[in-house]
């Protein structure tokens, strides 16, 4: 399959499920692996904050249980991103994408701070609503074409409805938009750069992959 990401390098088969590696998907896959590795081996930083109304400053520390949970969520988020980058099945891609949304909520929601928890709540609602167009797109595409295999759809035998592609993009925007939505509260108030970075990275990766998918199928 010649996609806009370049000629396929190789295809990894799990039964009837395909994972294909083009120069584009391989690049995204390697970056997801790299940042997941960084989330595993890095410890959180201590954010320096200026005390309001004075010239004192203090360092915020992350407790061990919080660090463990956020690291677990960051690793899960990384694994979901890895799956989404190379999946050759549209339904699997939507599953991985929704998992990215859930784990992103987890990374944020573990912080015991009112502002951050408010952001996580709003964040969770956006991600939850976005699953409707996300899975709806997969349902619509399988109903009209009879397949969810990206290589089969890319072969051009069946016309993928434009509304199916639009819903897919909308769903991914919803799942991926959540970190932008929560960015301010989360990043300003909560330490934990190796985990926060997974929120941004996973969202960006699913955006980049959906561009390739909708232009290929």
């Amino acid at each position, binding site marked *: 399959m010649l996609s806009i990401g*370049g000629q396929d390098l190789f295809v990894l088969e799990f039964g009837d499920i395909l994972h294909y590696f083009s120069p584009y998907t391989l690049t995204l896959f390697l970056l997801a692996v790299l940042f997941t590795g960084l989330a595993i081996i890095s410890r959180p930083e201590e954010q320096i904050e200026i005390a309001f109304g004075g010239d004192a400053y203090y360092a915020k520390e992350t407790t061990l249980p919080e660090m463990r949970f956020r690291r677990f969520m960051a690793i899960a988020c990384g694994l979901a991103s890895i799956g989404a980058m190379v999946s050759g099945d549209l339904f699997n891609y939507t599953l991985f994408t929704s998992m990215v949304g859930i784990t992103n909520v987890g990374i944020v929601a573990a912080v015991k701070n009112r502002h951050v928890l408010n952001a996580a709540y709003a964040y969770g609602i956006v991600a939850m609503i976005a699953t409707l167009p996300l899975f709806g797109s997969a349902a619509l595409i399988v109903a009209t074409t009879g397949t969810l295999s990206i290589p089969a759809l890319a072969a051009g035998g069946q016309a993928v409805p434009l509304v199916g592609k639009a819903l897919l993009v909308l769903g991914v925007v919803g799942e991926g938009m959540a970190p932008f939505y929560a960015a301010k509260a989360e990043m300003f108030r909560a330490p934990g750069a190796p985990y926060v970075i997974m929120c941004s990275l996973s969202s960006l990766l699913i955006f980049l992959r959906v561009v390739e998918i909708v232009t290929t199928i």
Partner: protein
Amino acid sequence: MIEYLVCAAAFGLLLLGIHRKVIARIQMRPGPPVWQEILHALKFSFKSTWVPRTASATLFVGIVLVAIAIWSAALFVVLAGESILILIGIYMLHKIVEHGFGLSSGSPYGKFGGVRSVISAASEIPLFVTITAIYFFTGSLLLRDIVAYQAVHGPLLLIVPPAAIAMYLVILSKLPFGPFSIVESKEIVSGYKTEHFGVWRAALAVTDGLKTFVLLYAFVLIFLGALPFWLILALMTAVLVSLSFVCAITPVLSPYDSVTVQSIITGLMLAYIGYLWWVVP
């Protein structure tokens, strides 16, 4: 392979030096010598290097290596004529790298730089609808196909000028001292770069050089096609000087204004894509 990296980084740093010199001359200042950025990179290589006590040490160091790795990959993508979608992916991932640089130190200045990087991504990324305009005409996003298309039909600069303007603005967004340089503007010291000193800063300078070279080289190839190498270098310099003029006469916008202006441009580009979709058979 390594010689390509060294030459590209050195030429990119020279371009950044020219950028500073042109800005200074327009502002009636003598400015630094054009090789100042190369000297900076060398100087930082021999300065003392440390990791702040508050930093996430692994991420603090690892992100520097990631920055070099992604722009080295971008250089080879362009040289190999591979998909410009990969180049765009790398450009976007640079936002994550800036974010990582900023947050990993624990410094409030770095943190603000990192957050601004993510916020500005929301407006900068959609500028890449420019590739849709290119795809309408070339039917491919492989750089070698785009170059081949221009050999037959003429430069894309004349066929899709709005796309060239959008890409020009994308490059402008990444240049220092520009109107959209909110991630490293002076009110937050050096933004995401603030705490990276010594060898880390030297590596960051090399990354900046590579990034400048890759973006300008890709711009010339995508919109003007295959030309003699010396002419490509000359055109890259000319594009950069034009960008320097823009940077010299415009202030750094506030983060809100920066995102608003970029979003308006993105809206105009989307309208143009809609127009193309309507009229191109």
